[in-house]
Each structure stands twice: as structure tokens, then as C-alpha cells.
């Protein structure tokens, strides 16, 4: 009898260990690629000496005209637009300033690591459009996807380096919370119910990033002194980068210029 109990105990222990093993694997897949802020190599940023990089992104040449979207397949969404919606590939402000550009520190932070914020970044679906069109968040930071439409949506990011997922979200469904573990600029997001719905999610390993509004301006604050590669990425025009050196408390200005394609 005692032997049987001992066997049961061993079996339960083995199962528990197995489940722990599975749990550990899941955690490592979902956790940020970068270790937590308290890990070796994490150096707190000294705000007393920190500087910043600011600037503007512009488009040289004529922007392409917005392409009209045909929402006849989803009348409830079409009714939300007083004029036909257009794609958001190229959003240009006064003087050729370019919106929806992700500006971020690509290199220069060494082995610094940054804890992911707990505050979720929102991605709304309204009028069968993703709002905002481009979002950026830190690896491990929650993404909260909401459906404000009376239509069924599916949210389908197509990453290269992160885990792919595809979830449905009927009207009135609770928000979908997801995270991305690895840096990736940028992950295309599709809705296969409404093939015109497109968005991009940029996942960064540091908090030094910004998505430009239509005025094209960006500001990367609280950067420790050092030399950095700053990259600007746009879904249509690709990426361009500049190297900048920040002295203690220094604020530098750099500007990016993308050239409109010949066919635009």
C-alpha cells in the first residue's frame, strides 16, 4: 500500500514538474527579449545628465493622392464616414511634414535594458479603420485592441520575429490584450473581413521612440549622453537613419527627409 502511495506521489511530482516546465517555456516565449530592469547590465538613466533629440520628418515631392476605400461590403461602417474614407499610407501636413513615421533609437544604448510599461497601448477599430494607423510600443508592453464598430472584425498581425495570432472580435466584445516579445519594426496588421483595414505595430526594446503626427515632429527625451543611430521608418518609403552624439544635458535637432516615389 505504502509503495502505491509512493508511486502516486512520484507521479504527481513528475506531472507538477512537467507542468512547471511547460509554464516556464510559455513565460520565456511571451516575455520581452530584453531582461528586466534589475537584470545585470541594466543601468538607470541619470536624468540630471540626460539630453534629447528632436526634429521633423518631411516628404520631398508630391504625396500620392489618397485612394478611396469601397466600404459597400460593410454598410454600418460606410455610414460612419461622411465622405468616402481613403487609405492612410501617406499622411502629409502643411509644408510636406510626414505623419505615421516611427522614429526610434536603433543603436547606441549598449546593454541597457528597460522594463516594459504596464500601461496598455490602444488600437481601436472604428468605421472599419484601425486607429491609429501606426502604433508603437515596447516589447512586453500590453496592446489593447478594441472594437467600436457594429461589425465583426478579425485582428491578424503578420510578424516575422514575433508570434503570429489571429483573433475575432464581434461587436461589444471585450478588448483583446496581447504582447509582443521581440523588437520588430514594423508588424503589418490585417483584418481579413475588411481587406482595406491595415495597420502597423512597431515593437521596440527601449522607450526611445515616437510616431509622428501629421506635423512630422518627434522628440526623444531623457536620452543618456552617448552616440546613437536614430532611424525613421515609414510603411511606404522604408527607413533612413542618422547618427547623433548627445553630450550631457544637450538637446540636438535632426531632420529626416523621405523622397516621394516617382509614380506617386
Amino acid at each position, binding site marked *: 500500500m505504502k509503495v502505491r502511495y509512493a508511486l502516486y506521489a512520484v507521479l504527481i511530482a513528475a506531472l507538477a514538474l512537467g507542468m512547471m516546465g511547460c509554464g516556464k517555456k510559455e513565460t520565456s516565449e511571451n516575455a520581452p527579449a530584453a531582461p528586466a530592469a534589475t537584470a545585470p547590465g541594466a543601468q538607470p538613466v541619470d536624468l540630471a545628465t540626460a539630453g534629447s533629440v528632436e526634429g521633423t520628418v518631411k516628404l520631398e515631392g508630391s504625396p500620392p493622392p489618397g485612394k478611396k*476605400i469601397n466600404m459597400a461590403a460593410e454598410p454600418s461602417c460606410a455610414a460612419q464616414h461622411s465622405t468616402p474614407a481613403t487609405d492612410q499610407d501617406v499622411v502629409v501636413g502643411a509644408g510636406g511634414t510626414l505623419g505615421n513615421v516611427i522614429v526610434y533609437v536603433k543603436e547606441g544604448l549598449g546593454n541597457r535594458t528597460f522594463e516594459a510599461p504596464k500601461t496598455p497601448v490602444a488600437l481601436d477599430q472604428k468605421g472599419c479603420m484601425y486607429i491609429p494607423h501606426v502604433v508603437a510600443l515596447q516589447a512586453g508592453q500590453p496592446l489593447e485592441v478594441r472594437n467600436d464598430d457594429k461589425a465583426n472584425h*478579425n485582428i*491578424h498581425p503578420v510578424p516575422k520575429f514575433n508570434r503570429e495570432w489571429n483573433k475575432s472580435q464581434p461587436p461589444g466584445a471585450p478588448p483583446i490584450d496581447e504582447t509582443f516579445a521581440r523588437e520588430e519594426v514594423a508588424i503589418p496588421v490585417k483584418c481579413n*473581413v*475588411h*481587406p482595406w483595414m491595415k495597420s502597423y505595430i512597431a515593437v521596440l526594446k527601449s522607450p526611445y521612440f515616437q510616431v509622428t503626427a501629421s506635423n512630422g515632429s518627434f522628440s526623444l527625451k531623457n536620452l543618456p549622453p552617448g552616440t546613437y543611430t536614430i532611424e525613421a521608418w515609414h510603411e511606404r518609403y522604408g527607413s533612413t537613419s542618422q547618427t547623433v552624439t548627445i553630450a550631457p544635458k544637450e538637446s540636438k535637432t535632426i531632420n529626416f527627409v523621405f523622397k516621394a516615389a516617382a509614380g506617386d
Partner: protein
Amino acid sequence: MATSANPAFHRFAVFVAACTFLLLVAGALVTSNDAGLAVPDWPLSYGSVAPPMVGGILYEHGHRLVASFVGILTIFLAAWLWRHEPRRWVRRLGLVALGVVIAQGLLGALTVKFYLPISISVAHACLAQIFFGTVVSLALFTSRWWQSELPQAADTASPPVRLLAIGTAAAIFLQLVLGAAFRHKGFGILPHLAGAAVVTILVLWTAGAIRRRFPESAPLGRWRRLLHFLIGLQLLLGGAAWWSRVLAQEFPQPIPVTIWLTVAHTVVGALTLSAAVVTALVCVRLLSSSREAALTSQPQQATL
């Protein structure tokens, strides 16, 4: 061959083949509308058997409904053949069709569960062609014509027409694999273009050999002309589909002209394969090698 043809069998098999053709159209519409993942769950759609049929859900769930119907029809066809068909190989072919349609359903589920991996998507597209060819063959085998006494002709020239016809059907199938790989972004367009050239040459060669060697054969002439027509139509549709894809790049969503041209190109491809399979089977049914002809003392070129 003793005639044991049951017209009801044949009509039902033709009906299943026609429904399978509609299923091919429904499947092609899913891909052309980029709606393969519009319904993330399987086997239910948005947790229901009757989700709102809008946008991509219309195409994906519609495809599932038609597929379920064809699956049920195939069960009936296989069961009917198993109970009443005297020829064992035809009964077995009915079971093969049932196995293929089940495998096809599972591949469809895998495309949803694994987010349209290229290999599974291409396998799903190609198995659809195999299933269509199988059901069309069953319709042929259950016909009164196939089961009646038919004069045999000797196919003595080299290469034999039977071999050419079988090779053409095989080449068309490989071309459909290349087309599916291009459509699902596994390959570029070049292998598909090269395949089109090879298939065109083989179709012209086979059709020419049939015309020269067996000009009196009405069945062979009929299928030869159909194959000719389909390959010409398919080349035109291929060019038009390519043009429309280039045109569609300027639009934020799939446009009707691209959708319908790519769907037409896909399903005419399936028709071409089936026509080639039937042509090969008709050749096998009506023609014999010189050795077989000598054994049966048939004339070299009998009137078919």
C-alpha cells in the same frame, strides 16, 4: 465489357462533379478576396454555424458551407457505389474520393489554425484539383459510354498517344502546383510561366497526334478540341489575371476585375486538368498498344 450502367449513378456523379466545380469557385473566391483568415475559429465560424455573412466572412464561411455539402454528397456517392457498383476498382475509387475530401477538409482546418502557411495552402489548393479530377473520373466511369462495348484501335506510333495524354495530364497538374505556389506567394511567376510553355507544347503535341492518327474518332476528337479550347482560354485568362494584379496594386483592397479574373484562371485550370484526365482515360479506353492489338488481332486503325 458487359453493360451494367446505372443512369442514376451517373447522373448523381455528374451532379457531385458540378457541385465540386462550384466549390472550386468558392475556394478561389476566398483566396482572391484575401479572406482565408476572416474566420479565425474552426469548425464553427465566430462560434456559430450562421455568422453574419459580410465582408470576408461571406467568402470563408460560404466556402465552408459548400465544402460541407460536397462532403455529404461524396459520402452518399461512395456509399452508393460501395453497395451497388459491381466493379471493385470503381467502388475503391469512390472510397478514394471520400478519403480525399476528408483530407481536404482537414487541410482546410490546418490553414486556419496555422495562419495559411504556404505549404498547407498549396497542398489544399492542389488536393482540390485531385478531388475534382477524381469525381469527374467517377462520372466518366459510371457513364453508359464507358461501360459499353467499344471498338479498339492500335496506337502503334511513337510516342504512343496514351503516354502523351497521361504525360500532358501530369504536366498540367504540376503546372497547377506551380500556379498555387505563385498564388500563395511561395514562388515567383517565372516557374509558372515556364510551366505554361511546357503544358502548351504538350497539349498541342497530344492534340496533334490524336488528330493525325485517329481522325475518325468522335470521342477523341471531342476531347481534343475541348483541351485545345481550354488551354487557349487559360493562356488568355492568365495574361489578363496578371495584368489585373498589376492594376490592383494601386487600390487599397482587392478589386472586382482582379478577383474574377484570378478566380476564372484558377477554375479554368481545374477544368483543363479534368479535360486532360478524361482525354487520357478515353485514350486508355479506346486505344491499345501494338502488342495488345496483335494479341486481339484488331485492325491498325479501327473506326471508333
